[in-house]
């Protein structure tokens, strides 16, 4: 009998995951089509779109026409484009190097940066949110409210320069560029990259905690005579952190975008910095290839979050 319960339990989760996967396919195709369409289907010469003002010889042009299947009808170009993506082919730069090589070389830096940022979001954002939420309208709560409003309003661009100038140049606390000091060089850019999300995590946690503290089931938990720690950890925090965990999960994909600015300003050799360099160097194929990869990450982590949500909240998976 126990076995049958377990089966239905996992069955429903399995069905849910299958359904989410299925729903992701059109989004995946649609998003890749959007990028494809911008580059290849808008009027004008796709090669020019990728090369910008860079001068190209006739031979190179011919080679590129063939590489991009530009003599095929548009739909076939797209099929081939998706087929290439599926095989991990994100295109080739004008020096003939696959974009995937650049990605693989530089992705670890971006991954480390994102990991540091997530750590800050959890460490600072969640803790600040919990403390603010537990004592709502207290002094700390107001500090969190005001500081998050300010942080949310500071563009990452500005925050990066200000922190670089103050903590790096003036105070000399952190390296201002490069990865020469190992993990330590990731701290300041990680914090900058995390800032906006961190403020949002703090607010989300605060609201969620404050709402859950008033929930009927928390009152029940207290009426059951559970120890205070159990009431707070198991019945308040556990429930409150569901939206926070899902937000942080979805944010991993979003951080990829922020990495372009952060890596550029702090001179970290990740894929974000590559995008910036490639824009400058008129390497359109690299820009499009990396952006495509970032979008795939974004979609992937959103899928992970949906599954995570169902694991954490049983109501979702039985719907």
């Amino acid at each position, binding site marked *: *009998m126990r076995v*049958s*319960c*377990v089966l239905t*339990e996992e069955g429903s989760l399995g069905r849910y995951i299958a359904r989410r996967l299925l729903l992701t396919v059109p989004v995946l195709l649609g998003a890749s089509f959007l990028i494809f369409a911008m580059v290849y289907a808008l009027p004008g010469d796709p090669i020019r779109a990728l090369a910008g003002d860079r001068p190209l010889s006739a031979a190179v042009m011919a080679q590129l026409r063939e590489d991009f299947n530009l003599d095929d009808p548009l739909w076939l170009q797209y099929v081939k484009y998706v087929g290439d993506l599926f095989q991990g082919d994100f295109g080739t730069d004008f020096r003939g190097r696959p974009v995937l090589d650049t990605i693989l070389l530089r992705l670890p830096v971006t991954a480390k940066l994102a990991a540091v940022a997530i750590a800050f979001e959890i460490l600072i954002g969640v803790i600040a949110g919990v403390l603010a939420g537990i004592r709502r309208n207290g002094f700390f709560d107001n500090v969190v409210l005001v500081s998050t409003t300010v942080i949310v309003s500071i563009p990452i661009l500005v925050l990066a320069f200000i922190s670089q100038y103050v903590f790096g140049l003036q105070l000399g606390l952190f390296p201002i560029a490069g990865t020469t000091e190992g993990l330590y060089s990731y701290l300041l850019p990680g914090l900058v990259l995390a800032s906006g999300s961190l403020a949002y995590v703090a607010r989300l946690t605060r609201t969620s905690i404050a709402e859950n503290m008033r*929930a*009927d*089931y928390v*009152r*029940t*938990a*207290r*009426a*059951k*005579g*559970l*120890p*205070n720690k*159990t009431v707070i950890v*198991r*019945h308040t925090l*556990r*429930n409150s952190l*569901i939206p926070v965990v899902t937000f942080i999960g979805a944010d991993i994909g979003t951080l990829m975008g922020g990495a372009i600015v952060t890596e550029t300003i702090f001179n970290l050799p990740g894929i974000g910095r590559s995008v910036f360099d490639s824009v400058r160097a008129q390497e359109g194929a690299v820009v499009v290839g990396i952006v495509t990869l970032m979008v795939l990450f974004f979609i992937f982590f959103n899928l992970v979050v949906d599954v995570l949500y169902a694991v*954490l*909240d*049983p*109501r979702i998976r*039985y719907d």
Partner: protein
Amino acid sequence: MTTLPSSASSVRSGDGSSPILSVEDLFVEFRTRENLVNAVNGISYTVSAGETLAILGESGSGKSVSAQAIMGILDMPPARIPNGEIWFEGRNLLTLPAEEQRKIRGPGISMIFQDALSSLNPVYSVGYQIGEMFRAHGGLSKKDAKQRAVELMDRVRIPAAAQRVNDYPHQFSGGMRQRVMIAMAIALDPRILIADEPTTALDVTVQAQVMDLLKDLQRETGMGLVLITHDLGVVNEVADNVAVMYAGRIVERGTVDEVFTKPGHPYTEGLLNSVPQVEAKGGRLQPITGQPPNLSRIPSGCPFHPRCPRRRLGAEALPGRDCAGDRPPLRLVVPGREAACHYSEEVLGV
């Protein structure tokens, strides 16, 4: 503000055993930025083993708040208990350290709530939530606790308990969810069970089943049952004694049979006239006019006087018994009956 000490309380359970729970002159207020809400204003009552005491009143009469004060689960602040004693098995809960109070919740006094769906945590299985009682109070292992949970679910007559123990609250029907709540509440054989509107959210047929279950469990365990409700039918069916609350005060108290046949307070009288009764078929329903009082501005004198058809003001009133000026104390009006009305004898027709 006069209230009788509990020793003077004339209402006892049938067998005359000494009370397990006794509430004495309890006040609860809520302080918000704008005003002060006097939710409970000096209530006293006792509950003995095997007794079912119904606390009857409209929403906002203070009945749920007083129950939460007994459980020690009011949010303080904004709530505050400026005065009162709550005696349980020889100890005043209000002066007990928090940790001692907590240990009484569950094995000593437990409580079930109106809306079982929101009162159960959506992310834990029902088995886990019932089992928590044993893990927190009995130190049982997770596995043993789950086993006990299955037994309890059987006991509250949830079909196929062993299969459903890992299900989540949202997978149960309303009636079954309330049974889960009851299983949780009786897990540790409490001496007192407080049921706050346990059947209000349920269909009528399911209501009867749940009330039957509660009565059966009470017979088996001998626990005292405090039934908080606004439903006169439920009171009539299951309760031994009834305390009628209005504006945070008890306005009448007695055995259900007597109070319901011969009310001693105009408010009780009004309540009885406002519901259809099988016996009095064809009679007109007479709703109580006016609105329940605003608890931050309770009327002077008898709080019910603005809505009372029997009120006597000014020259009509007997000396010292002006309904708008003199607050009537809860007093013994006939043997076995207390009422807080200057003209209770008139209401009773004695």
